């Protein structure tokens, strides 16, 4: 194994890991705060990418990517709020909220995906890359857009971390996730923060979609694969914490890049699944996680 090989694996692993970290952190945020799993997260990603495409692409309104991002963020905030209100909130007091919201968010996923297919059609689309061209890092060539992803993902995650750590609302969100009863007793409006969390996660999904939409082709089911990867990451990372999830995302990216190099893309998913089963048999709470319900 040459240094070039190692460098190639690490570079493509970090590109993958950055995307996975963005996807998984939105899921993880909702899970740690609301205790539910949003299966529509991938569809929200797709929606963000399509909205950005319509606003920015010449075949759409051609208003530029900034307009695309702005509209996608605005719409996703709205969708996040509506989703929380309609398919999550009614079940907060239900004993089986977890199982029921798996079904309702799955239904929402179908609704959004089919809606996208209805509005935009099944034809493939692609967002124009923000950074065109190629760059070479450690003797490995990647597209400039991929480099952009590697830079933007940690920035977004860092911003999320600062928000959760230092702002009143961010700290409130963490408090609600750790002990909602105690949060209520210090005057936190728990249900309002649930909405904020859901909307925030939807925005993260949309931004991820916009980044990914310029390196992959857009289809209505564009979000499915990232969603599944994010599922596996949160299992590996354990569901307890955002930092565990982000770490697991980068580890997963590099493992996947290495496996792809050594065993090829055909067998990589199977090996990852076998690894997953082994991890779960040995540590049912995930590699880095703590026990959750």
């Amino acid at each position, binding site marked *: 194994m040459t240094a070039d090989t190692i460098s190639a694996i690490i570079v493509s692993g970090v590109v993958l890991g950055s995307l996975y970290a963005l996807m998984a952190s939105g899921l993880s945020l909702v*899970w740690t705060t609301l205790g539910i*799993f949003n299966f529509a997260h991938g569809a929200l990603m797709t929606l963000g990418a399509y909205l950005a495409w319509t606003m920015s692409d010449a075949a759409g309104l051609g208003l530029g990517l900034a307009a695309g991002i702005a509209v996608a963020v605005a719409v996703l905030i709205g969708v996040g709020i509506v989703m929380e209100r*309609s*398919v999550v909130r*009614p*079940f907060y007091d*239900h*004993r*089986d909220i*977890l*199982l*029921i919201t*798996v*079904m*309702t968010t*799955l*239904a*929402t*996923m*179908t*609704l959004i*995906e*089919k*809606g996208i*297919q*209805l509005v935009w059609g099944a034809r493939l689309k692609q967002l124009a890359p923000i950074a065109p061209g190629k760059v070479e890092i450690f003797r490995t060539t990647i597209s400039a857009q991929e480099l952009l992803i590697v830079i933007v993902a940690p920035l977004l995650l860092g911003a999320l971390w600062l928000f959760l750590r230092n702002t009143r609302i961010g700290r409130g969100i963490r408090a609600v996730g750790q002990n909602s009863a105690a949060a209520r007793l210090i005057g936190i409006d728990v249900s309002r923060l649930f909405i904020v969390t859901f909307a925030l996660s939807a925005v993260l999904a949309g931004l991820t979609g916009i980044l990914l939409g310029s390196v992959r082709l857009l289809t209505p*089911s564009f979000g*499915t694969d990232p969603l*599944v990867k994010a*599922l*596996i990451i*949160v*299992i590996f990372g354990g*569901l307890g914490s955002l930092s565990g999830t982000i770490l697991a995302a980068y580890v997963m990216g590099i493992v996947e890049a290495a496996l792809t190099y050594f065993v090829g*893309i*055909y*067998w990589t*998913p*199977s090996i*990852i*699944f076998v690894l*997953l*089963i082994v991890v*779960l*048999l040995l540590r*049912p709470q995930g590699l880095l996680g703590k026990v*959750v*319900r």
Partner: protein
Amino acid sequence: MFFLKLRTVAIPLLLVIGLLVPIFVQDTYIRHLFIIAFIYGIVASSWDLSLGYAGIFNFGHIAFFGIGVYAAGLCAKLLGIDPWIAMLIGGMAASAAAGLVALPVVRLQGVYVVLVTFAFSQLVLQVVISQSQITGGTLGMVRVPTIELFGYNFLRDYKLGYYYVAFALLVASAFCLRQLVRSDFGLSLKALRDNEDYAVSRGIPISTQRLKVLVASAFFAGIAGGFYVIYLRVASPEVFNFSTVSLVLSMVLVGGTASIYGPIFAALGLTFVLEGLANVNGLAEGRFMLVAIVMVLVLLFLPKGLASIFSRK
């Protein structure tokens, strides 16, 4: 009491109606819809065995169906195994896969079960797509051999043979599932679902029972998958889609969880409604959005009848 009496009459009556349908329905397309609905009925009702009765958050059931599809299709097409036997192999392959998934699942709780079973179904999909030299990849598998008996091709006479095979499979699976949930085994499953600690303290082996129920419910899904591929003669990775999952899940929910007949009737109803809507202009895709909305509405407004059945006392 009245209800019980109605039921004892209703089941034989429905059997007779089911047998007589082909006399009144000669249209190939309508018969096709019946056959598809019967297949969905088997998948939905067997899913309810693990999801509703045993309370296992199993979201890999459609993958078991898909494994049945591909196992039977490959055996019949590539290995030249008699399609009748291939269907059975479909069921066994699904059961074997369920045994593998059960390995971690019986030890896990709550959301982890959901995640692992979901991840499993996506893995199966990826394997199918990646092994394209065998499975046909995203294009799918075509020209799967069809079933015959004494030289009679089941596609003849407006799919008459297939109608009766599908009906017989549905009746047989409904009968087996009913027997299963009424047996001691079925009662122990409900005990585990309703009060795990108590059931365990009474000596019910939780892991073994969960393993058994997953293997059993997957068997029916696998047989249904085997029949599906032999009947349609094509297999496509689309069977693993989230849309298929939502569709069958909506049948389980609309029909009522922890019920065998409910999902079967829901499968019949929804299949025909959806086909009807497909012909309405502009609803070809929109109808699946309607299914999704119906699912949420059922969970929202019929909690007593449907969602509340999940709640363990």
